[in-house]
């Protein structure tokens, strides 16, 4: 079962390996022996009924909740022992299903927070090393402006994030995650609040970002059109366990998935 990193071998190790991960909250078994690996460069979809444990799995990877069993490896190294704050520096950035935007900050400030781990210093550095702090701030500003431009958000850069409509908030989160220069991007329902037309555009955008920034993406989304068109591979969770894995076509036809998740009209 253990995946061995093969130096220089033909099969490069997956970028993210989740092995036998379990999580309990009191009486609720949110995840039970979930295993999943994401290859570098792919867009992998993670789907499943409500409460299947998708968000919880994201929380495990980003160390926002502890695991009761199993292991999580990123780029071959265990990350399930790191503190939550070190995950982003390790190269994993995420968006939040129910929004992790700071409403009382401007859009640009929100995005700049994403780049904190790259250029930001310790609090007292501001006092002790003013020059280098100022330089870092300028770099951060330039980089984040670029990101905003890429996502078409430059017009609202100086607006308060709290004043943005729902779908824009989702996009701001994406911008913030991108600003962190991650290698792995975890997207939790990024297309919420988008119309069909916008969803298609959004799919394009994600693909473009993946190519430009050499990203690997794990995507949670209930919008089947988007998932099927964007992802090369899908994993399905159900009741906290692996239900199925495969190509979109395989999954679409998988009877268990239809029963548990897609419903009659899929």
């Amino acid at each position, binding site marked *: 079962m253990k995946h061995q990193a093969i130096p220089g071998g033909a099969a490069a190790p997956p970028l993210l390996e989740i092995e036998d991960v379990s999580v309990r909250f009191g009486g609720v078994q949110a995840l039970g022996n979930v295993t999943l690996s994401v290859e570098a460069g792919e867009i992998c979809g993670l789907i499943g009924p409500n409460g299947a444990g998708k968000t919880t799995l994201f*929380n495990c990877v980003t160390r*926002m909740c502890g695991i009761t069993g199993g292991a999580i490896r990123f780029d071959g190294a265990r990350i399930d022992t790191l503190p939550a704050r070190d995950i982003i520096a390790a190269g994993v950035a995420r968006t*939040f299903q*129910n929004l*992790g935007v700071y409403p009382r900050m401007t859009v640009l400030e929100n995005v700049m927070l994403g780049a904190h781990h790259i250029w930001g210093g310790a609090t007292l550095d501001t006092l002790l090393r003013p020059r280098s702090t100022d330089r870092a701030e300028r770099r951060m500003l330039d980089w984040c402006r670029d990101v905003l431009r890429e996502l078409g958000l430059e017009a609202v850069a100086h607006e308060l994030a709290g004043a943005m409509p729902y779908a824009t908030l989702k996009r701001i989160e994406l911008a913030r995650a991108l600003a962190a220069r991650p290698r792995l991007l975890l997207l939790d329902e990024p297309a919420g609040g988008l119309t069909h037309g916008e969803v298609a555009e959004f799919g394009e955008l994600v693909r473009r970002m993946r190519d430009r920034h050499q990203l690997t993406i794990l995507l949670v989304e209930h919008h089947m059109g988007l998932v099927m068109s964007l992802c090369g591979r899908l994993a399905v969770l159900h009741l906290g366990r692996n239900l199925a894995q495969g190509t979109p076509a395989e999954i679409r036809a998988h009877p268990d998935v239809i029963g548990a998740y897609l419903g009659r009209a899929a």
Partner: protein
Amino acid sequence: MELFLQQTVDGLASGAVYGAFALALVLIHRATHIVNFGQGEMATFTVYVAWQLAEWGLPLWLALAAGAALAFVLGVAVFRAVVRPVSRAPVETVVVVTLGLFLLFDALSLWLWGSDQRAFPSVFPDHGWTVGGVRLTAAMLGVLAVLGALAIVLGALFRYTRFGLAMRASAAEREKSVLVGIRVETMLMFGWGLAAVVGFLAAALVAPRLFLSPVMMAPVLIYALASATLGGWDSPVGAVLGGLLIGVAESVGAAFLSFIGAELRLAIPIAVTLAILFIRPAGLFGKQGVVRV
């Protein structure tokens, strides 16, 4: 041993004072999510009014009833006049308003009745018993019994009635409460009124012991705050038990830990509360809010 028991009993007696005040604080916190720093002073003011009525010849129970009624009106009036206008402002604004209430009512009592301490009549008989060398008084047992009953009733009100549920909801999430049809302002107003009544009862219970004076409740404030924290800010029963626990810890600690002495007595409630918070971050009976991302 006898001294130990006696100190425990003394601690319970002081603890009843802390718990009574803490109960009023917890009540208003539960009902409005505000810590009213002026609670004790408002209560003192209303007790003064009851005292004045009794001085003028009203029977004690009638004076107490009038005081309670006045307390309710006062609570409602204070809410309408000064709290409602800032109820959408940041919390710190409300904190200052309640500090203003503290100063205002303290000064008002001082101005109307002067700084001399008064004898407030006790509703309990002047009895006492010595059991195994330990002195128990009817007043103390009575206060404990009334407090316990009050805490249980209030706890049940919040826990099992729709009114209590609605009150909690409007304190916790105003916007959402409105969307289910709760008249939040009315709820908050009731919360203030009710808390003022409980504050009045608490103060009237402990006034015979603390002696009625404008600053009667001020030294109790920190103890009451610590008690409420220790018990968990959600739970009336917790507030009273927290008060008793702190009372006993303080009394026994100050008597037997010689380095603490009179000066550092105050450190005991703080230390005890901190210790408990490390084991139970929301206090003994508190529920920890869930923060999921």
